[in-house]
């Protein structure tokens, strides 16, 4: 093959290259710096993320593509890049004091965070299933390691092992699906598939079967990555066992990346055969919402509660796949932006409540009355919980509102009724956290905690962000609407 046929365009992937370079530098510094100088490593990590963000902003609106559609810088990709970079930035801030507390200030942790972010950006910014798969694997492998980062903690080890075994099992389904789709169309390029999908496949005869089997396998694989029921089993265990900032990270970036790839594959490439797969997403959405919310009711461990809530929120987002209109896609973008803010804020509060000995996750023992002793944490936790439950005037309300209203417009009233009932159920367990924090007598061991600067900053930023999006959602919604493919 002639190399000149490949349109090499480095500009398109500058944000990714920056992350990769900073990742390698962090790895090398981890290996060569003396132990007492490692405090600078997290600062290097967030500088890298900020630089990458800067270059992504510069690319916004350009619509560049390169490497024969393998790398894209369309607005859709860049909007997701913003989501990933912001969530990684917040997670780096969360990790600074957490790792100091654990006496584990290490560069490889931040390097893996950067690599995971790079992988997510690859997933969102490609037209080619090869690159989507590679990005997904970069994310997954980094996360397997990160979730087992507390090497001495049996829970962390178990989380890592379960994540790894189930994750690679699901990956094999995903690539089997990609193989079948490749067999059907003779290409892995989504743009070409979009063009070919309405017609019968290249490989006449068995084409229908190959295509539908491939779509089924793809849904299983991605369903695992976004933790939709019935492929959700890993998420609660990984959340409970993984280091708290990593649990927050998994709930934010990788999930959004999975949705980005799903959006591109199903609502772009397979949009012409939408009636064939709508029902599957309908079922997944209903199962995820209902199971997630019902199981969350019983949780007393806040990290597990947030895991089930994350599964339920995944269900709400899947509604947009059923309706599939442009306003639904922009609704997903809005929802994910709001979701990373409220979820990472909640995780920041959990980290602040914890210490080296305890994780700060037990609702009864560690949160009873804690809101009165730590008014700052209490007030902001209330904001995050209200937003997760979907009360106005928070971002969570508008996120749900846009997705539900677009589904009604597309004629899926039944699905929206189920979703609203689910939202009402979820109010119970979100409000229970607030009730415990403010209206229960405090337990003995609940004391005022000192909040490190970086954690306070995350809580403040996410809290303000949620309120700002709740009061003035139009700006972000316009941006999201301009960012659909």
């Amino acid at each position, binding site marked *: 093959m*002639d*190399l000149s046929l490949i349109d090499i365009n480095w500009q398109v992937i500058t944000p990714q290259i920056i992350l990769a370079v900073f990742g*390698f530098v962090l*790895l*090398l510094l*981890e*290996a060569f710096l003396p132990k007492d100088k490692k405090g600078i490593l997290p600062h290097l990590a967030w500088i890298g993320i900020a630089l990458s963000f800067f270059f992504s902003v510069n690319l916004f609106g350009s619509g560049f593509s390169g490497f024969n559609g393998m790398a894209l810088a369309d607005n859709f990709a860049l909007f997701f890049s913003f989501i990933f970079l912001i969530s990684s930035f917040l997670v780096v801030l969360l990790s600074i004091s957490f790792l100091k507390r654990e006496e584990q200030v290490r560069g490889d942790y931040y390097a893996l965070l950067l690599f995971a972010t790079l992988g997510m950006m690859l997933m969102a910014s490609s037209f080619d299933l090869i690159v989507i798969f590679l990005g997904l694997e970069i994310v997954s492998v980094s996360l397997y390691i990160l979730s087992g980062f507390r090497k001495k903690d049996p829970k962390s080890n178990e989380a890592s092992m379960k994540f790894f075994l189930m994750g690679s099992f699901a990956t094999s389904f995903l690539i089997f699906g990609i193989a079948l789709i490749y067999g059907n169309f003779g290409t892995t390029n989504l743009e070409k598939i979009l063009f070919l999908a309405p017609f019968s496949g290249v490989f006449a005869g068995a084409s229908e079967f190959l295509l539908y089997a491939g779509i089924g396998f793809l849904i299983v694989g991605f369903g695992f990555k976004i933790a939709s029921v019935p492929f959700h089993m890993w998420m609660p265990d990984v959340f409970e066992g993984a280091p708290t900032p990593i649990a927050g990270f998994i709930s934010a970036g990788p999930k959004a990346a999975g949705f980005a790839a799903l959006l591109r594959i199903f609502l772009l490439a397979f949009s012409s055969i939408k009636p064939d797969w709508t029902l599957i997403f309908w079922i997944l959405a209903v199962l995820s919402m209902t199971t997630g919310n019902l199981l969350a009711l019983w949780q007393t461990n806040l990290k597990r509660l947030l895991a089930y809530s994350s599964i339920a929120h995944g269900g709400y987002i899947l509604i947009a796949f059923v309706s599939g209109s442009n306003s639904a896609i922009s609704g997903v973008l809005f929802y994910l932006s709001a979701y990373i803010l409220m979820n990472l804020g909640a995780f920041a509060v959990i980290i602040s409540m914890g210490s080296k000995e305890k994780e700060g996750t037990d609702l009864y023992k560690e949160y009873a009355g804690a809101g009165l002793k730590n008014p700052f944490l209490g007030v902001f936790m209330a904001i995050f919980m209200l937003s997760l439950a979907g009360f106005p005037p928070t971002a969570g309300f508008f996120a749900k509102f846009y997705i539900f209203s677009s589904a009604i417009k597309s004629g899926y009233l039944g699905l929206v009724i189920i979703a609203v009932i689910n939202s009402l159920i979820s109010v119970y367990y979100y409000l229970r956290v607030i009730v415990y924090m403010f209206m229960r007598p405090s337990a003995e061991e609940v004391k005022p905690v000192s909040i490190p600067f970086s954690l306070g900053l995350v809580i403040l930023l996410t809290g303000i962000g949620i309120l700002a999006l709740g009061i003035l959602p139009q700006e972000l919604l316009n941006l999201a609407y301009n960012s659909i493919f």
Partner: protein
Amino acid sequence: MPSDYAFVGLFLVFGVAFVLFVFLLSKLIAPYKPNPVKKENYECGEVPIGQGWVQFNVRYYLFAIIFVIFDVEVVFLFPWAVVYKSLGFFAFIEMLIFIAILIFGLVYVWRKGALKWV
């Protein structure tokens, strides 16, 4: 179609038969005069310690893992080498970057002390 598989079957039969035949032949012709030194396990000329069938030390796993990773990266070098001449200078630089990344990994592993026998 089935006739193609007949060839495979024929090869299989001949392959197995040939191996059996050679073993039988050596059994028939070769003299058999064992002594303790001859029956020892062969370990590159060293005096062997213990049995050959032992559980390997878990310390080997690090080397094995590192080997697995670096071994597989070669898979990218082969196709590159095959078409090297028609690709030109740019592909050469690309491959240098690729190898540089691998070397980063090796340096990290080395500095972290994973190559030391502890």
